[in-house]
């Protein structure tokens, strides 16, 4: 019965549609409109540019350097502005970190750096586990593991070993681009000191949580803020707070900011910030990021005409 119904229906359709087809030509313009509408309804893309760069001020963001790209980063922090006119409000002295980051896979990057602050070398691996996507994932999640090694000459009577000079930080970076202008990130952080030197209080195992925000105010300019809340801290240190401006010019990102931190790798900026905003013990600083393409061209994904 049902089979018979189907056949009848098919014949009816056949007759009807042949009439339509003969009497009216296909309009490609309408065809395109309906195809586009159907495609728009299904197409989903990962969210890009949650932040302009892989760092906000000092802290890592959920962004990953593109595969095959090298990011040369120079971070610079002048001396505290409260040192007055004699020091040109801090411009006479500076702390810096120079680093190279490499995007080695779509969601994986590594980097190395050298800071003048305690003459430290550092290296890190960052992997994006979840990439924010409309309808699929409300946040991006990245994991960061970083090691720092303090090369500063220290009093031999302290008997400082290689392990004493090594610091480990692990972070879970959870970021979300709420809309085209506003992005937020929360970063639970764990830092381990094999041996605590020069500081009292605190502990060898330190926990903190980072709050990062960026507000885009024009196509190329964003305001940024970054704050880490420490659950336990060394005596005489403060929670790091930085506010700044990101200027994106295409190949470069300039980040200008005021911060109370001097160090620029994870354990120094989070746990060894001795400046206080209350005392005006803040520094003007900037980061410059210049991206170079170093990966080889792949056939196919980049065809020549």
């Amino acid at each position, binding site marked *: 019965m049902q089979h018979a119904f*189907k056949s009848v*229906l*098919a014949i009816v*359709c*056949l007759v009807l*549609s*042949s009439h*339509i*087809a*003969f009497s009216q*030509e*296909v*309009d*490609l*313009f309408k*065809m*395109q409109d309906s*195809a*586009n509408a159907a*495609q*728009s309804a299904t*197409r989903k*893309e990962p969210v*890009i*540019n949650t932040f302009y760069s892989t760092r906000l001020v000092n802290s890592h963001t959920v962004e990953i*350097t*593109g*595969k*095959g*790209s090298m990011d040369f980063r120079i971070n610079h922090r002048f001396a505290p502005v409260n040192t007055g006119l004699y020091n040109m409000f801090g411009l006479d002295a500076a702390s810096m970190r120079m680093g190279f980051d490499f*995007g080695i896979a779509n969601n994986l990057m590594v980097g190395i750096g050298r800071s003048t602050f305690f003459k430290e070398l550092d290296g890190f691996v960052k992997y994006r586990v979840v990439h924010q996507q409309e309808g699929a994932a409300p946040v991006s999640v990245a994991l960061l593991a970083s090691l720092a090694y303090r090369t500063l000459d220290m009093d031999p009577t302290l008997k400082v070993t290689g392990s004493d000079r090594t610091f480990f930080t692990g972070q879970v970076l959870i970021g979300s681009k709420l809309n*085209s202008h506003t992005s937020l990130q929360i970063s639970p952080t764990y830092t381990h000191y094999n041996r605590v030197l020069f500081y009292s209080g605190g502990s060898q195992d330190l926990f903190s949580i980072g709050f990062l925000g960026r507000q885009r105010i024009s*196509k*190329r300019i964003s305001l940024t803020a970054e704050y880490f809340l420490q659950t336990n801290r060394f005596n005489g240190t403060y929670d790091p707070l930085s506010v700044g401006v990101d200027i*994106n*010019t*295409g*190949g470069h990102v300039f980040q200008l900011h005021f911060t109370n931190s001097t160090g620029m790798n994870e354990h120094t900026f989070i746990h060894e910030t001795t400046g206080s905003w209350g005392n005006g013990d803040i520094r003007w600083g900037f980061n410059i990021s210049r*991206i170079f*393409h170093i990966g080889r*061209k792949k056939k196919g*994904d*980049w*065809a020549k*005409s």
Partner: protein
Amino acid sequence: MKSVVVWVLSIVFFVTQADAQKVFGTRNGKISFSAPDDEDVKAVNNEVTSRISDNGQMTFSLLMKSFLFKMAEMQEHFNDQYAETSKYPRADFKGNIQNLSSVNFAKDGAYKISVKGDLTMHGITKNVTVNGTVNIRGGKPLAAAQFSIVLKDFGINASSVTDKVTVDVSCQYQ
């Protein structure tokens, strides 16, 4: 049940249509663009949907996000700052061949064509005329064209990179 109807409809539709009108299409046409003064700035999109009909209509549609650059960062800037592809995901062209009488879709050969129509990009529609060729081989057309676009015409400010781009179109239809 529903699928039977759809099948029958579409088969009949296409069979009868073949008699009345010839339509050729592709889903992987190629459109690339480059900056005339900066050889690093170039991108290719291999997922262009395009159709051409022997009634003279031509359509092109592509997702701006599908333009692939050599550098991931450049691609991100293109998407985020210049083309604003999450706001304006698609570029679209609908045009008519002006000299349709000089093209014989039934006969192999190379034909020069001039296509006039509306190009929509970055939310702005402009009427443009593009000169190109249709090369028919084995009954299947290949359309090719090269033309320039002034980005400002489409409200795209990329003056720190380039003011105009050269666009290359190459679509092999089935």
